[in-house]
């Protein structure tokens, strides 16, 4: 699981450089997110623009990543491709996470 993390405009951006977050990599993704978000940043933007497919295990891993960050921090999602967007919409998880069409849009909206 290739996650790359950087700071930008006082936000932390974690970009997923894999085309799938599915059952085969869900646990690995959750652990990689734990490492990537083990810091003091209040807001993490998960850039999903390279992810073409997510299944319910991948969705569960993203929920787990949000939960392990704790109540006081925010995990926002950016750059959802059509099938990824469909999974979040059908499960109504798009109402649990702040969702942005593009990473630029997320940065503009969330930067302090």
């Amino acid at each position, binding site marked *: 699981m290739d996650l790359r993390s950087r700071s930008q405009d006082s936000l932390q951006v974690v970009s997923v450089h894999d085309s799938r977050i599915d059952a085969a990599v869900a646990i690995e993704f959750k652990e990689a997110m734990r490492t990537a978000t083990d810091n003091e940043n209040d807001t993490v933007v998960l850039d999903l623009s390279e992810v073409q*497919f997510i299944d319910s295990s991948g969705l569960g891993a993203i929920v787990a990543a949000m939960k392990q960050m704790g109540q006081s921090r925010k995990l926002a999602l950016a750059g959802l491709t*059509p099938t990824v967007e469909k*999974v979040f919409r*059908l499960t109504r998880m798009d109402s649990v996470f702040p969702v942005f069409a593009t990473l630029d849009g997320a940065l503009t909206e969330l930067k302090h």
Partner: protein
Amino acid sequence: MTRTTFLPAFHISVVSGRLAVRQALAELLDGLKPLALDVEEAGTVELVMAEALNNIVEHAYPETDAAGAIDITCAHHADGLHLTVIDSGRAMPDGQTPVGTAADIEVDLCDMPEGGFGWFLIKDLAKDVTYKRHDAQNRLRLRLAVALA
């Protein structure tokens, strides 16, 4: 445009394991290429079949059991794709598929569900879902209303 020709039925067989689902989905989507499904339709096919196959790898052939075959048949008719998935693993509990109700997300962060979305997605996106246990095999059938005539 009215569709007058249908894709001939085709079969896919994989052995359960960590990458079995990815392999089966890649072969399925490859087999469907002549239909030129749009991203919405292809996403529906991939998502429903991913959930159905993940359930088999996780529950019918759990890691403690021997690996086994998963056979998929895909037939194209006027009302969409008819998919049959057969495995020889453990039966569904109670001999039926889970109801697949939507997970409750009006809860505190710590109670937010991390699973239980799979059957909801299958039943939301697929039609005519049936499950039968027969001759020590699980047979799941479903229809996806894509590539309609």
